[in-house]
C-alpha cells in the first residue's frame, strides 16, 4: 500500500520542467509589470508635483494657463504670484506647428521619391542617410543651430538671432529624418496592385501618386507627421540652446522667447524643492506630459480610423 501512495505522490509532484515553466513565466511577467509600474510612477509623481501649484499654492488653473507674465518669485499687481505660462505654451505650440509645416512637404516628397520614382537611388543613398540622421543626438543639432543657424538669422533679420525662427530651423532638420522614414514606411505599405491598376487605367505617374498612393497612405502619413510633432514638442536641449530663453510672449519670430522644455531645463536646478517657483516648473512638466498623452491619443485615433477604411 505504501509504495502505491509514494508512487502516486511522485506522479502528482510537479516535474522539473513544469517548475521551470512557472518560474520563467513569473520572471518575464515581473519584468513586464516593472515597466508598467515605471509608467504609472512617472505619471503619478509628475502629476502630484504638478498640481501642487494649484492645491497648496492656490494659483488658479485659468491664471496659470492664460497669464502672460512668468515670474514665480515675485508677486504681481494683484498680490498673487506671477505664474502665467501662456508665453511658454504659445512658444511650444508655435515652434512645433511651424516645424511640422515646413518639414511635412519635404519629408513626404522625399518619401515619395524614395518609393515611387527612384527606388534604386532611394535604397542606396536616401535610406541609409535618413536612418543615420535619426540617431544623431539632439545636442548636436542644438550646437549646429547655435553655431550656424543663429548667426545666419542674426545676419539676415538683425537682433540677437535667437528665437522661434532659429528653433524652427533646428527642429525642422531634426524631425525631417524621422518623418521621412515613417512616411516611407507608410507608402511601402500601399499594395503594389493599387499602382498597377491606376497605371493600367492610363493615369500618369504623378496622377497615380497623387490620386491613389498618397490617398491610400494618408493615415500612415498623418501618423508620421504627428509623431514628428510630438518629438518637436518634447525636444528640450536643442531648442533651449537656440531660442533665447526669455519668458515673454513671442511678438515676432526672431525675438527671444521660450518653450515649456527650455524653461524646465534652465529653471529646475535653480529653485528650491517645494517652493512655489519649483512647483510652478513642475506644473509646466505636467502640461508637457499631458500634451504627450494627447499626441499619443491622436496617433491612436488616426490608426483606428485608417483601419476602418
Amino acid at each position, binding site marked *: 500500500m505504501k509504495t502505491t501512495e509514494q508512487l502516486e505522490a511522485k506522479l502528482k509532484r510537479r516535474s522539473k*520542467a*513544469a517548475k*521551470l*515553466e512557472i*518560474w*520563467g513565466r513569473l*520572471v*518575464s*511577467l*515581473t*519584468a*513586464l509589470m*516593472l*515597466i*508598467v509600474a*515605471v*509608467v*504609472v510612477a*512617472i505619471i503619478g509623481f509628475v502629476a502630484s*508635483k504638478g498640481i501642487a501649484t494649484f492645491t497648496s499654492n492656490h494659483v488658479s488653473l485659468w491664471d496659470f494657463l492664460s497669464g502672460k507674465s512668468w515670474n514665480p518669485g515675485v508677486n504681481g499687481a494683484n498680490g498673487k504670484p506671477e505664474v502665467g505660462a501662456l508665453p511658454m505654451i504659445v512658444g511650444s505650440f508655435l515652434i512645433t506647428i511651424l516645424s511640422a509645416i515646413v518639414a511635412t*512637404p519635404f519629408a513626404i*516628397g*522625399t518619401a515619395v521619391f524614395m518609393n515611387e*520614382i*527612384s527606388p534604386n537611388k532611394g535604397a542606396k*543613398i*536616401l535610406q541609409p*542617410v535618413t*536612418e*543615420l*540622421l535619426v*540617431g*544623431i*543626438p539632439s*545636442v*548636436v543639432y*542644438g*550646437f*549646429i543651430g547655435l*553655431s550656424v543657424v543663429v548667426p545666419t538669422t542674426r545676419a539676415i533679420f538683425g537682433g540677437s538671432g535667437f528665437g522661434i525662427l532659429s528653433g524652427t530651423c533646428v527642429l525642422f532638420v531634426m524631425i*525631417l529624418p524621422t518623418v521621412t522614414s515613417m512616411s516611407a514606411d507608410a507608402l511601402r505599405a500601399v499594395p503594389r496592385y493599387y499602382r498597377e491598376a491606376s497605371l493600367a487605367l492610363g493615369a500618369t*505617374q*504623378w*496622377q497615380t*501618386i497623387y490620386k491613389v498612393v498618397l490617398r491610400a497612405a494618408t493615415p500612415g502619413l498623418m501618423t508620421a507627421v504627428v509623431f514628428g510633432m510630438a518629438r518637436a514638442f*518634447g*525636444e*528640450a*536641449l536643442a531648442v*533651449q*540652446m537656440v531660442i533665447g530663453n526669455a519668458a515673454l510672449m513671442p511678438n515676432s519670430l526672431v525675438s527671444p522667447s521660450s518653450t515649456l*522644455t527650455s524653461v*524646465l531645463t534652465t529653471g*529646475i536646478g535653480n529653485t528650491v*524643492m517645494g517652493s512655489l517657483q519649483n512647483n510652478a516648473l513642475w506644473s509646466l*512638466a505636467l502640461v*508637457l*506630459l499631458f500634451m*504627450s498623452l494627447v499626441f499619443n491619443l491622436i496617433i*491612436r485615433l488616426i490608426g483606428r480610423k485608417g483601419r476602418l477604411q
Partner: protein
Amino acid sequence: MNSKTQNKIAIGGLYGIAGLVVLILLALLGYILASGVPQLSWHFLTAPGKAFLKGGGVGIQLYNSFYLLILAMLISFPIALGAAIYLYEYAKDNWVTTTIRTAIEILSSLPSVVVGLFGFLFFVVKLHLGFSILSGAFALTFFNLPLLTRSIEDSLRTISDVQREGGLALGLSRWETVTRVILPAAVPSILTGVILSAGRVFGEAAALIYTAGQSAPALDFTDWNPFNISSPLNPMRPAETLAVHIWKINSEGIMPDAKAISSGSSAVLVIAILLFNFAARYLGKRLYKRLTSA
C-alpha cells in the same frame, strides 16, 4: 495644361525636393565632421577638461558616457527581454495586454526631459542617491526600456511559428522552447536592436542633466576600487557625459574654447553613432550566417 506636362512638372519637383533634402542632410553631416575632426587628437580624447582655460580635453566625459551606457544596458536588457518574451510568447490577446502595450507606447513617447525630471525627483531626491551615475543609469533605463522591448518583440516576431510548434511537439515546455529554440534563432536581430538602442542612449542628454549631474570630478584611473570616490568605477559619483558636456559649455559660455571643444565632441558623438550603426549591421549579418548556416 495637359496631364503629361503636369506629370513632368510634378516629377521634376519631387526630384528637386529629394535633392534638396539630400543636400541638407549631407551638409549637416559634412559640417559636423569637417568642423569637428580637426579638433580630435589623443590629448583631446584622454585629457580631463579645463573649466576656464583653453586646451582641455573630454577624457572623463567620454569615459562617463561609456560607463553609463554599459550600466544602463546591463539594467535595461534583462527587463526588456523578459517583458518582450511575456508580451509575445505568453500574453493573451485581451484588454489587459492592450492596456500594457499602450502604457509602453506612452513611455516611449514621453519627452526625455520628463523622464529625466522624474529620475531627479525619485532617485536623486527621494532615494537620496544624489547626482550620480546610478541615478543617471536608471533614468536612461526608463528612456531605453520601451524602445528595447519593442525591438526585441519584433525580433521574436520574425521567428516563424514552425519553430515554436517544433519545440512544443518535442515535449519542451513553453519556457524551454523560448530559451532553447526561439532565443538562439533571434540572437542576430536582438543584437542589432541592442546596438542601435545603445547609439540612442549614448547621445541622450536631456534625461541626464538632472540625474547624472553636470560636473565631472577628476578621476584616478589607477584606482579601481568602486568604493573610493575618485575611482572610475564608483557608481555614486556625479558624471557629466559627452552629450551633457556639449550642452553645458554652450549654455554657460565661460570656457574660452567652448566652440572648438563642442565641435570635437559632436564629431566624437556622431562617429560613435556611425560605428554603432555599422557594427549593428555587420554583426547582425555575420551572426545570422554563423548561426543559421544560410
